């Protein structure tokens, strides 16, 4: 398993280097978005309106952070479960989104979109929200402020610790359960 240091925006060349199981330290600007924000992003696309950020080369982090206390850019900020964004993700991947960050399984449509458009799915450690918060150096809401914790934020990360769960070649890291027949 290789270790890569990557900086956003990500390119096809960045994605082609990655294999399921690789460790990635991600730096640069990423965007937060979870359930309600994804619904609104797709509504903007349906209405022919621009997204609040350029999806090309972008990374979306499925996170709804806790409020920032004084002196911190953000509160606790670990990943939420990704399958709830599966209904929306292929649309964004087709527009050039290069990676999403979350936890848990993706469906076949998302995996297919990642293969077709060269994108990956990163896992961050669920329930390590305080630890992950330390790697976020700046955060500001750029859209849908009314959604509170679900608003879209532009966040700057430094060496954000990730694992490649699904690569762009059909590889997957998650273990298959040993179910008795």
């Amino acid at each position: 398993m290789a270790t890569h240091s990557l900086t956003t925006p990500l390119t096809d060349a960045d994605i082609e280097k990655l294999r399921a199981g690789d460790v990635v330290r991600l730096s640069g600007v990423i965007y937060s978005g979870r359930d309600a924000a994804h619904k609104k992003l797709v509504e903007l696309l349906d209405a022919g309106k621009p997204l609040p950020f350029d999806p090309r080369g972008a990374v979306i982090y499925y996170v709804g952070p806790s409020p920032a206390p004084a002196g911190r850019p953000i509160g606790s900020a670990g990943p939420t479960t990704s399958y709830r964004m599966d209904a929306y993700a292929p649309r964004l991947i087709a527009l050039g989104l290069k990676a999403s960050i979350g936890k848990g399984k993706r469906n076949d449509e998302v995996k297919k979109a990642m293969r077709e458009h060269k994108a990956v799915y990163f896992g961050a450690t669920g329930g390590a929200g305080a630890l992950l918060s330390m790697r976020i150096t700046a955060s500001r809401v750029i859209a849908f402020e009314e959604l509170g914790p679900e608003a879209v934020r532009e966040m700057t990360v430094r060496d954000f610790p990730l694992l490649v769960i699904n690569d762009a070649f059909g590889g997957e890291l998650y273990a298959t359960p040993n179910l008795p027949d």
Partner: protein
Amino acid sequence: MREIGAAEVSAAVARMCRSANTKLPDDVRRKLEESLARETSEAGREIFRQLLENADLAFKTKLPLCQDCGLAVFYVEMGEDVRVAGGLNKAIIEGMVAGYRDGFLRKSSCDPMTRRNTGDNTPAIIHVDLTPGDKLKISYMAKGGGSENMSRVTMLAPSQGWKGIKEFVVRRVAEAGPNPCPPVILGVGIGGTFEYAPRIAKKALLRKLDDTHPDPKIAAMEAELLAGVNALGIGPMGLGGDITCLAVKIAMAPCHIASLPLAVNVQCHSARHEEVEF
């Protein structure tokens, strides 16, 4: 009739909400340390190291252990000879709202259809059991959505028995896979009715992870389910490994002669709960 002031109850509830979200219970922490020593998968051990570091950091910085500070669930045991002046529910809700606001905890409650956030984590989910005497015990649990979504209730046929129960529980954890943030803790409710089985399943999650059920038959059932689930090999965060589940806690209740209700309440490793007695 003994009387307790609402302000006293509210203040204690606010303290519990803040404390439980930033300090992992000692038994959970011990279990994570034991798991780090026992897990043979290196990816799994790395997860346990991160979770222990996260717990230290949360305690030190007072950032929540997890950004999902949950819906606030309360199990109340209320003596029949005690009352809360001004009302028990109001006191709990006011304490919860203050705790989540002042502790910078995430408000995760929304309208089920419009999905509009209620803004203050209300309502709290409050279960009250009346007990003899004049004591009041309030247990608080921060129940996150990721693990709650992987929970299930089913009505088995009595003929399915223990074999059916075991199959359902193991399959549920297998299907949940990495989604609920394994290693998980399982609260299993067997018996009662359609609504009572999950109520006792969730309450069982308040038990200490290293306790032993006083009924040896139930203790053996818990051990068998734990072994069955850990044989799945899902491992920490679904990365593969020996430890998919930290503990199984069973609660049983008599049920209808036609029924075998079964509830599996999945709890993530960040099992945040506290209790206070008056």
